[in-house]
Structures are given as C-alpha cells and as structure tokens.
C-alpha cells in the first residue's frame, strides 16, 4: 500500500489533463476502488496453503540436492586428476628411494637358442650326452672302488675333464 500512498494521484492527473478533469479522475478512482473493497475475493483454504508450504519445502530440498550433485560433477574431474597425480608421485617416490631390484639373466646363453644350425647343435649335443654317460660310469666305478683304490687322483682327472667339456660346450 505504500506505493499508492506515496503517489499523489491528482498531481499525476494534472500532468496530462486540466485541474477539473484531474479532480473528476481522482473521484472515479476512489469510487471504483470502494466498489472493489465491497466485493472481496475468496481466499484459499488452510489446507491449500499447507500444501503450498509443503511444495516449497520439497522444492528447496530438490534444489539443495541438485546443487550438491552439480558440485560433485564439477569436482569429480579435478579429484580424478589429483588421484592420478598422487598415484604417479607415490610410485616415482618409491622407485627413487627403494632397494635395488635384482635382475636375473637367462641361465642358458642366448646364442644356444639363437643358433640356426640345428644339425650341428644336435651333433654337439649327442657328443656331450655320450661323454656325460661315460663319466657317469667312471664315477660309479670310482665310488665303488673297483679300480685298485686310486680313487682321489681319478676324481681329480675327472673334474679336469668336466671343466674342459664345460668350456667346450659353452664356447660352441
């Protein structure tokens, strides 16, 4: 009501019409508004107002949820980037300060397996197998002391022989 109370209707009318017409205009306003006051509009019932208040509470709840979800969607990529950076950082830190890891090489020299001359390798392998068999027999004989009790020198000879075979094999 303050909006209407602050304005001077007659003054406003006088900006556009004569003083007499302005007075008549103000009178039309007053009489018409009196009629409107005589016929008040019905009011919504209390139940309806309660429903509206409940709808408002629900709308507020939905807005909060929506705002939270929007924030979560915005933060998710940032959080993901942080997690990745942290994971990489931790890994780098471990690699920098941790114990030296042992690296095991293959027991069998690579050139054995890289050989393309299969026939030659097979022949060598046959010779080696034969020699090993012979040595095995000799060992068994020595252990059972069947060649006159001179076992220690024979073992030494055998060991030398073993070393030579070993060298020959790996040198190809």
């Amino acid at each position: 009501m303050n909006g209407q109370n602050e304005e001077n209707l007659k003054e406003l009318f006088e900006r556009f019409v004569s003083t007499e017409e302005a007075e008549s205009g103000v009178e039309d306003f007053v009489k018409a508004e009196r009629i409107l006051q005589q016929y008040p509009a019905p009011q919504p019932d209390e139940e309806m107002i309660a429903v509206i208040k409940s709808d408002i509470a629900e709308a507020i709840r939905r807005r909060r949820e929506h705002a939270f979800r929007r924030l979560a969607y915005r933060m998710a990529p940032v959080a993901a980037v942080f997690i990745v950076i942290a994971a990489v950082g931790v890994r780098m830190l471990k690699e920098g300060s941790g114990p030296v890891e042992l690296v095991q090489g293959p027991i069998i020299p690579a050139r054995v397996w890289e050989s393309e001359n299969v026939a030659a390798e097979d022949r060598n392998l046959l010779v080696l197998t034969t020699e090993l068999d012979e040595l095995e027999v000799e060992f068994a004989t020595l252990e059972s002391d069947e060649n006159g009790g001179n076992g220690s020198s024979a073992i030494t000879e055998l060991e030398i022989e073993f070393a030579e075979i070993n060298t020959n094999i790996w040198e190809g």
Partner: protein
Amino acid sequence: MAQSDDLAPIIDGCKAGSAECFSQLVDIYTSRVYGYFYRLTGDSELSDDLLSELFVKLVGKIASYKGGSFDSWLFKIATNIFHDYLRGKQRRKKLYEARKNQLESEITEPKRSENGRIDKLQIQLWKLNDDTRDLIMLRYYSQLSLKEISKIRCEPIGTTLSKLHRGLKRLRELME
C-alpha cells in the same frame, strides 16, 4: 503491504533456503496474490494452481531479487505466470469456453461466490477486456503506485493512467 524493513530478514532467509521464511512470505502475500489470480480467472481451483506455481517458482527466483520494491517484483512474476497461462493454447481455449459458459449461465442464474454473496463484481469484470481487467486487478491487489505498474507493463505512465481511469470508470458504470 509489508514494509521493506520487515521483509528484509525474511527475504534473506529465503535466499539462504529457509523453508520457514518462505512460509512467512506465503502468509504475507497469499491473500493479495490469490485475489489477483481469482479476479482474473474467476476459477478458485485454477487460482490455487497459479498461486502454488508462483510460490514454488519463487524458490528458484528469489536469488535474482536484488532489492527495490519486493511487491513490484513479486507481482511482475505473478503477472508473467498469468500471461504464460493464457498463452497455453489448450488452456486458453478452455478459459474462453469457461468464460462463455459463465456468461451464458449469468443470464439465467447469477454466480455466487464461495461465501454465498452474489459475485456481481466477477460478472462485470468479464465484460471488460483482458488488458483492462488485468490492469485494474494489478492496481488493486498489488497496491503498487502507477509508476511501478507502468514499469511492470513496460508502458509510459500516462498510458497506464489513462487505461486505468477508463477501466475503473467503465467498471463503476457496470456496477451501478
């Protein structure tokens, strides 16, 4: 009309998302806004819907209120809601049919308002054109100054004054 000083903490509360403050706004404005909708539609159920739409919409819009006359701001939203309603094709058709039926029924049986009083005012309001009825109701229920109303309607104050004067004069003639 609530004073701006009284409203300021309530509006701040609404902006902070307080259901209690919104509830207070409903208590302050329901009577006038409902009266505005009811006199424009002549339908209490529809007025209930529009009133509900206004206050629920207010939850989302309250943050955009940057000061000034809250009544003016609120009634601008109410006016827009009513105009949106009118713009709906099906709804408008229904409204015109309802108006037609209403005017036809007036000839044989005058419509009575919910409290039993013959609602002569509502009958005569239908005889005014939409724009004039809207203007008279906005002036009466919003209790805004002509300057504020002309701002809401985006027209010069002289035009608003002239239209309102003619409308009120015509309504007075119809009611007498």
